[in-house]
């Protein structure tokens, strides 16, 4: 069935034929009134198709920008319908005009809240989404109640809508977060079984905490999300991957593990996800090994980048090229051997061609330079003037940088000279300018450049190019015999010169020639100075002419004039022109905004994004072991902003289960945070430790620890030094007591325990009986779902590495006896 066939009430329409649509023509007076009449008779209308058609008309008007807010009352009456399509459209109308009619809108929210309890999850989601999108600040409190309910809805669709709803309300009223503890809820929901919900949680948290750089991440959260990466939709994957660049891995090994985990994503066809991986890699490399590693990474991603670039649409190609350009700046040389990929294709859009030309110039090295120069020279003859100019500039760049090896600069110079003679206005002009630049960098080419100049002066008409030729004539006056006479014609025709750039060049060059060959030039210089001092069209020119005139008249010695005029324009071979010198700091800043519009615009976001949309790039977690100075893991400095963030996140990870009521609530935050670690990586061996033989391992029977002590000791050991061990169990213990009693007999004390709907939780501790007397703290959880196993996260305050943890687990296993397999 086709929707096209749902003929509107008006004249019958043919499917496919051009629609004489009355509602897309201009609004004639009375049409809105007509609609109102239709709406008034809405309830009497029986035909569902006709009903839909009326609503559709209203929406069509709205789309056109015609104000139909006058129909608000009538539309409100329609809201009570069972037809989902009509409902959706009415909601759309409502969201659009609610701010204009706040009182009326408030009236209809009853229907919306009622729909939030509908049996159909689609309707619940839809109603909630609309309710949150009304944009009425006075409604915020009213909405938060159904919202809270929806956050615990049984259906993921409603939950994900609710998560987004939090963000919508937040923008109306920032305090709502605190009043409802939404931030904690959101962190809790990162563990939601549905990936779409988790995706939205990440997005919302990022925006809520924009000021502090986005969602707070710690190891547990990061690993949890990365391990579930396969479940996310492609857009969800991007949300997760966008977190990775801000995460500082706990140690080298973890960094590499994350990279290995992400590597397969490079095969995706979604360019967004693909770019996110590259950024994640580059950022991880910064934490691990720095520059060298980046080189490896860029080499690794080269092939997929090229595939992505050539296989996609023109728009993606543009974006990819911009990023490739940035990668080349970061690691010059890596893309060099793929230079053929950057050759122009006939059917590509111009913007892509322009970029390719610019990139090509950066790829030149002694091996490929002849090919690249050949290709660029072909592009010069393109019918698009901008393209050919860019090609000439690219050639000049290769010659100036002298990256093309032996003979390349000469080759380019010869080609440029041919182009000057080509007599196509823009090409000759651009080539002349290029020659002027090359001469500054490479004075040895002067013999080569000199011959065509006098004739070029005749047919180059474009201001800039002409000025360049005149400049060159002045510079090379000593080897071009006819130089003064070429200029003389111009001086005689001074009044016909329009372009001030040409006049200035003429003035300077004539002076230079005068200093080189005074007898020939003296008279024409006199005429030129006279015309120029009388010329009022350009202040700068006028002043300069006067300056030269007075210098010449008053200077006791011509060498002084010589010094003034003949400044050394040459630049040492290795140096760049000032405008080409890329600022390192600027580039680093830009790389922090990789995979955003910043790279496309070539400037950092503070230049084009308003303050409230700025996102600061903050690396997390702050209490990072590799980050802290001089290897002192425990006392890593924590800056106030981040510690606040991490508190928020710790608090939010808190499980609002029975654990809360246990005597040591203070330990809960850390504990809950660690329970995510079950997904974590291999336990990492602690630094050099004396091995502890298992046989000598025993525990002090009567050890006591207060909640506060436990917490501080737990916090003092970094997460990176924790050991995660899984003990398989044969059967599920019936209660927490069944575990605690045998353990306490084995001198393992329980600080707190609790039963959650899905798992048992324990906070255990014990003291080593050996001389160092280190405290062993354990956070354990037993999942109620199969397979039945006990997940231990062990921290040891004091010396003792993996062996000690292992020995402890043996004690624990023995104690559990019946349960442990």
């Amino acid at each position, binding site marked *: 069935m086709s929707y096209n066939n749902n003929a509107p009430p008006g004249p019958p329409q043919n499917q496919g034929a051009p629609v004489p649509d009355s509602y897309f023509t201009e609004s004639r007076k009375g049409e809105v009134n007509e609609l109102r009449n239709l709406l008034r008779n809405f309830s009497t209308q029986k035909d569902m198709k006709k009903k839909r058609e009326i609503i559709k008309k209203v929406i069509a008007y709205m*789309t056109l920008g015609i104000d139909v807010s006058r129909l608000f009352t009538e539309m409100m009456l329609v809201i009570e319908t069972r037809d989902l399509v009509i409902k959706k459209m009415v909601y759309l109308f409502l969201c659009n005009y609610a701010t204009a009619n706040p009182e009326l809108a408030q009236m209809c929210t009853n229907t919306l809240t009622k729909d939030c309890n509908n049996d159909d999850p689609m309707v619940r989601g839809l109603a909630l989404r609309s309710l949150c999108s009304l944009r009425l600040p006075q409604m915020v409190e009213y909405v938060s109640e159904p919202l809270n309910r929806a956050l615990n809805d049984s259906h993921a669709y409603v939950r994900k809508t609710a998560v987004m709803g939090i963000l919508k309300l937040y923008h109306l009223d920032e305090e709502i977060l605190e009043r409802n503890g939404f931030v904690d809820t959101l962190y809790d929901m990162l563990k939601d079984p549905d990936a779409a919900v988790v995706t939205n949680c990440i997005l919302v948290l990022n925006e809520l905490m924009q000021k502090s750089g986005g969602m707070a991440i710690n190891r547990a959260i990061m690993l949890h999300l990365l391990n579930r990466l396969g479940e996310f939709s492609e857009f969800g994957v991007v949300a997760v991957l966008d977190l990775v660049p801000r995460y500082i891995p706990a140690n080298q090994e973890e960094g590499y593990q994350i990279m290995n985990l992400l590597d397969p994503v490079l095969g995706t066809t979604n360019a967004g996800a693909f770019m996110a991986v590259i950024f994640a890699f580059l950022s991880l490399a910064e934490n691990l090994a720095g520059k060298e590693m980046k080189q490896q990474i860029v080499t690794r991603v080269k092939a997929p980048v090229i595939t992505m670039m050539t296989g996609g649409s023109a728009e993606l190609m543009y974006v990819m090229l911009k990023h490739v350009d940035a990668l080349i700046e970061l690691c010059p040389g890596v893309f060099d051997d793929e230079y053929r990929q950057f050759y122009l294709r006939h059917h590509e859009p111009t913007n892509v061609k322009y970029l390719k030309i610019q990139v090509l110039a950066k790829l030149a090295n002694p091996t490929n330079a002849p090919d690249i120069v050949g290709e660029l020279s072909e592009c010069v003859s393109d019918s698009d003037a901008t393209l050919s100019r860019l090609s000439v500039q690219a050639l000049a760049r290769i010659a100036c940088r002298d990256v093309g090896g032996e003979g390349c600069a000469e080759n380019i110079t010869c080609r440029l000279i041919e182009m000057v003679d080509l007599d196509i206005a823009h090409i000759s002009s651009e080539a002349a300018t290029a020659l002027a630049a090359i001469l500054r960098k490479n004075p040895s080419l002067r013999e080569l450049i000199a011959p065509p100049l006098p004739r070029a002066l005749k047919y180059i008409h474009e201001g800039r190019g002409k000025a360049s030729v005149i400049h060159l004539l002045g510079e090379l006056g000593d080897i071009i015999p006819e130089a003064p006479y070429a200029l003389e014609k111009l001086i005689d025709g001074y009044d016909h010169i329009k372009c001030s750039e040409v006049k200035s060049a003429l003035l300077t060059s004539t002076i230079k020639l005068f200093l080189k060959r005074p007898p020939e030039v003296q008279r024409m210089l006199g005429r030129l100075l006279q015309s120029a001092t009388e010329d009022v069209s350009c202040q700068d020119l006028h002043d300069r002419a006067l300056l030269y005139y007075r210098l010449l008249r008053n200077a006791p010695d011509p060498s002084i004039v010589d010094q003034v005029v003949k400044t050394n324009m040459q630049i040492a071979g290795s140096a760049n022109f000032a405008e080409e010198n890329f600022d390192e700091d600027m580039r680093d800043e830009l790389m922090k905004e990789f995979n955003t519009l910043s790279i496309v615009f070539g400037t950092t976001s503070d230049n084009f994004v308003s303050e409230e949309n700025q996102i600061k790039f903050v690396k997390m977690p702050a209490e990072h072991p590799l980050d802290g100075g001089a290897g002192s893991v425990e006392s890593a400095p924590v800056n106030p902003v981040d510690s606040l963030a991490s508190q928020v996140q710790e608090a939010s990870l808190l499980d609002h289960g029975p654990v809360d009521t246990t005597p040591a609530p203070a330990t809960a935050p850390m504990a809950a945070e660690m329970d995510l670690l079950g997904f974590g990586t291999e336990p990492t061996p602690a630094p050099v430790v004396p091995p502890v033989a298992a046989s000598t391992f025993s525990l002090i029977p009567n050890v006591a620890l207060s909640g506060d002590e436990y917490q501080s000791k737990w916090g003092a050991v970094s997460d990176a030094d924790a050991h995660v061990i899984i003990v398989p169990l044969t059967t599920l213990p019936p209660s927490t007591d069944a575990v605690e009693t045998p353990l306490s007999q084995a001198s393992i004390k329980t600080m707190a325990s609790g039963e959650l709907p899905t798992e048992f939780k324990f906070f255990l501790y014990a003291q080593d009986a050996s001389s160092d007397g280190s405290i062993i703290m354990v956070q354990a959880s037993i999942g109620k779902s199969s397979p039945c196993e006990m997940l231990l996260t062990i921290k040891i305050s004091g010396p003792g590495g993996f062996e000690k943890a292992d020995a402890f687990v043996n004690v624990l296993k023995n104690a559990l006896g019946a349960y442990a397999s």
Partner: protein
Amino acid sequence: MISMILVLNHKGDVMISRQYRDDVSRAAADSFRLQVIAAKETGTQAPVKRIENCSFLYTRHLNMYFVAITRANVNPALVFEYLFQKITILKAYLGEEFDDNSIRNNMTLIYELMDETMDYGYPQNCAVDVLRLYINLGNIRQQDEPDASELTSQITGAIDWRREGIRHKRNEVYIDVLESINLLMSSQGDILRMEVTAQVQMNTKLTGMPECKFGLNDKLVIEKEASSNRKPGVEIDDCTFHRCVRLGKFDADRTITFIPPDGEFELMRYRVTDNINLPFKIIPAVREMQDQNRVSINLKAISTYNTRLFATHVVIKIPVPKNTAKTKIKTSFGRAKYEPEQSAIIWRIKKFPGKAECMIGADIDLMPTTRNKAWVRPPINVDFQVPMFTSSGVNVRFLRVYDKSGYNTNRWVRYITKAGGYQIRI
């Protein structure tokens, strides 16, 4: 995040506007119309345009503009992906060639889709198959209605590209390997650039949730199997996959395993740069005789593929100077004509047999011009299709379908090589 999505027609009239955030207004559509559409900027300028503090990212479908407007520093690749997917979705609902009229007639449907695919500026569910389950007003083919509980569990969830309980009477898989060959040859006959980019398209009509395993004659795989009397495989430079493919598995042992979406989709793309068989050799000879204002062009086209095959739609475009007055063309095969609006001789051959040689000769008289401007000599462009031929040598070795019910599957494989940019400079 995206603040607004607009669909405009070629004149810049708003056809669909969906505002997700308050920070841009309808006036944005006007500035886009004035600064991009009216300025005829598309194509020459970047597809990302900044107007004041708003960034406009846009793409086109036929003569319509799909524009995303944002004030934040978004991820551009992601936004374009979203726009492309949006167009894909609309194609699925309204047909491949949907135009302004179908947009207008299905406005409510499109607003529904706008709502489901994006919430508050963040992309949500964009999988056509799942959207179809609960938005089915358009002329999308009606599938047997799944019951509501099953339906809603699909909206979110891990395998969002396929729903459960699909049934087909006959289980069939069609595989199309579409290669497009890019060649750029210098006037001296040196190959400047040669590359094959290819797509593997699939159309699956399979029952249940089948697990598929797909194999090409990938060099790395064949070497590993190390069976003695096999032909060496093809060295694939790089490939990307549809998201249904288990990337981890490919990374580990280069097997391509997946649960396919129902219907048509692009399984993978690959790129090959080595050992490419060119289907055509083109040998041009161009002589310009300045004094007599004449140009003579001789061109030989030789097909290198097997005699059992033939190429179709061969079009060779030979550029001539703009001031061409008269042409005299002789061909051994096919039809050739001078087309002044393209300043080229277009030589069309409907069916080009394998291992054959065709010639064309043209004498061109030029109009005398006042200023002798050199002829820029644009490249010769060749267009063709060669069915059942892959210039990279890639072929499908197997496709295995495993399903619980163990049904038999019919498999059909087609190959086709097209010219991407096949250019010879003169």
